[in-house]
């Protein structure tokens, strides 16, 4: 078992290292960021000073080694476009993305799980078809489409919800009094982007819940419980539900992470100051350290989560525990 964990750990580190290297190489293929700071007519000495500040006048291998070295110390470099350390800016924005992701997650669960269960219980009937179609519809409508329609209908025409950003609440790491209220304020700003984001994933939730329920409902354990004469409601509520939620939760966890990191288009449309917007700004401005930092952080989160899941499975499944 210990070997298994160590192996998984080793693989995760290799994956992360590969990720960093791939991104490092790719951002440098996108062009020269120095010229973007200088205006038409800026003097050469000024541009050279910027290039030196950014470390881009060093040979490539030197840039790479110093970047990796700094990473191990927790220094993600300075943003080219926003002039402050990447870590500071990222940490400032992360709570916003988490707030959006959690809200979208909740919406996707609230929309998807009950409908999925309904589909499973009324499998192959009209309800099931409706459920399956709704799920697919969610997965088929691009997030920006939903977002645009929401803004125009609820924001501009009806005026029910504000259209700008996230409101005034902020999560300030250095100010603990803001830590708790942040999650509960400004829900009106959160409603539309969270719905646009969660809509897509509710389809996935629906399907997973449905197939999980069907698996459980067809299992021997449930047949036994039914034979014992337990009333149907209890069968469903007490036994089927509990067991079918395991795969749901596993994948839900992964979905949450994906939501946090993938909400680029939603954040751009709604002007939501999250890490997705950081990434988009960074890509437009050839802000190497920012792009590298954000991608690395999202990769780190996913790799960590996968590692945890793998280890948990290892504990649960004796085959894995005892395999090579």
């Amino acid at each position, binding site marked *: 078992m210990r070997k298994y964990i160590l192996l998984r750990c080793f693989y995760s580190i290799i994956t992360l290292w590969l990720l960093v290297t791939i991104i490092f190489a790719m951002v440098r293929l996108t062009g020269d960021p120095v010229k*973007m700071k200088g205006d038409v007519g800026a003097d050469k000495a*000024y541009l050279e000073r910027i290039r030196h500040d950014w470390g881009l006048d060093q040979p490539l291998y030197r840039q790479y080694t110093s970047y990796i070295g700094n990473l191990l110390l927790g220094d993600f470099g*300075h943003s080219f*476009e926003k002039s*402050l350390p990447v870590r500071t800016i990222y940490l400032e924005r992360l709570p916003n993305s988490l707030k959006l992701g959690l809200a979208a997650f909740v919406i996707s669960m609230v929309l998807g799980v009950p409908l999925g269960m309904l589909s499973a219980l009324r499998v192959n009937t009209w309800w099931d078809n409706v459920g399956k179609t709704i799920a697919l519809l969610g997965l088929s409508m691009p997030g920006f489409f939903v977002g645009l329609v929401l803004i125009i209908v609820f924001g501009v025409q009806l005026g029910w919800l504000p259209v700008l*950003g996230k409101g005034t609440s902020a999560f300030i790491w250095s100010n603990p009094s803001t830590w708790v209220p942040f999650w509960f304020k400004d829900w009106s700003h959160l409603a539309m982007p969270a719905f646009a984001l969660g809509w897509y994933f509710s389809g996935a939730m629906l399907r997973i819940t449905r197939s999980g329920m069907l698996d459980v409902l067809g299992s021997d354990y449930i047949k036994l419980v039914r034979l014992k004469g337990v009333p149907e409601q209890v069968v469903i509520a007490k036994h089927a539900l509990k067991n079918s939620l395991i795969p749901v939760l596993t994948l839900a966890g992964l979905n949450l992470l994906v939501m946090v990191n993938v909400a680029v288009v939603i954040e751009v449309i709604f002007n939501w*100051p999250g890490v997705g917007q950081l990434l988009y700004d960074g890509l437009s401005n050839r802000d190497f350290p920012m792009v590298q930092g954000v991608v690395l952080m999202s990769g780190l989160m996913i790799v960590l989560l996968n590692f945890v899941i793998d280890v948990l499975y290892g504990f649960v499944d004796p085959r894995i525990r005892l395999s090579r």
Partner: protein
Amino acid sequence: MRKGILVLVPVLILVSAPAWEKLLAATAKPTPILSGPLAKLDIKDAAIETARGKPKGKLTIAQHFALDPGWLDPLEHSYVLTQQHYDYLVHDAMIKPMPQGEFTYSLAEHAEMTADFTKAAFRLRSGLKFHDGHPLTTQDVKWTYENYKGVNFKLFHDKLQRIEMMDDRTIIFHFKEPFVEFLDLYNGGLSGIGWIVAGHYYKKVGRDGFKANPMGAGPYKFVSQEAGVQMVFEAWEEYWRRSPGVKTIVVKGITDLTTRMAGLQTGELDLAYGMTGKLLPRLMADRNLRWDPNFTGPWWLMFPGYNEAESQFHDKRVRQAVSLAINRQFLVKQETQGIGIPWGNWVNQENRDALRGDGKDLPVPEYNPEKAKQLLAQAGFPNGFDFEWYVPFVPYFDMGERILADLRAVGIRGKLQVLEGPGFRAKMAQGRKGYPGNRTIVQNVGPRPGGAKAEIGVYAVCGGSASFVCEPPIEKLWAKHQASVDLGERDRLIKAIQRILIEEYYFVPIYLNPFVHAVGPRVLPEGKGFHRYWDTLHAPYPWPWEIWEVKD
């Protein structure tokens, strides 16, 4: 008796001498700091308001770019996008452009340069201090100059011989050689070196700390920021010039036009930039909102590589056809609801030495697609031709598409190249190398201070940093201009160069661009008076900020 008067008169004179001195002193000019003949400088006095009102209300501004904390540091920041927008908020300069004139005394109350431009002297006002109460002295002026790392920093450092601080308020810069453009460049409108930074504070918080939490001597104190998202400023009532009108200014970075529009309409925003394009009709139709046309400069087209023989744009007739194909009247109606003005020149009309393109100096360009087709046929393209890329100024892609449609109607077909703002600027900054090949059309607008000669120097001469034009007749005139010291002759030569550029169709002008700014109902004064905020010359944004007023 006579003896008594003879004695009394000198006594009277002696007794009243101090009074005479005072009278003379009051009417005499201030003693010059520098000796010798002085250069004639045209710097306007500051308008100080003794009545101190209370700042009221909040002004929320929508900046059309994501915010960069680096803009808060005058020692370093680039002037590309927002120029001095934030300098005018938090900091103050020795001399800066104001509604009175391009050079207006600010922190300095008196400036001199020797006639040979080797020395420059400034006298600060008395009683100046920073937001934290620390006095602003020549020590800070010296420190700022020495630690400046922004545009032209090398030039400033190389030319400087030494800085002499005569006292807390008087400072003299000694240069190694004549520095004619010193005041032009030191002016707060052009670079950050004139904006005075508190050395003691900068050293205390460090470079990153200063950008995260800046402090200066300007009308507004920095309160807080979320990097890239918003910045909050609060009025500093002890500002020397006057008490600011608005209490809180919030700047948000909103890159999206529809979001800015929505914000204006819901009342979440009070001032928004860049409202041109498809939403202009909506803006104009909304009774609650007002707008200022804010003309920045003319649009024009350039042809990188036209002087190469294989380029499709090599023949003057082809370029003329391009100009004839564009329906400027219709374009102006579609893009700017008729606010834009078809213009015959490419140089910003606010410059004194620019030719006017409304028919006075240069004709308004003609729209004649039939003639365009004839010219194309004469030039060897009877069925038109395909060129590669049309590169519009970001993000005016709609306008680019409209022009492309016009060109396609006469047979000139191409694709629109959609770039990001930084990508476009990077290409322009590389000049000819930014646009490989010779089948491209570039659409640009380029307001910059310094007169038509500055724009020509960048775009129209062989050595220009963003120039695609290299023509011997222009070079001859330019060389004469650089060598001449006669202002009248210089003016004539500059105008002649502009004429050649238009008549030979090296540049194709389109229309004067209104970079529309919109304000909401809270902005005072109500009605049309708010246009005065845009009075400063050459300013793409409505600074200075301390004169703004909003409803409570």
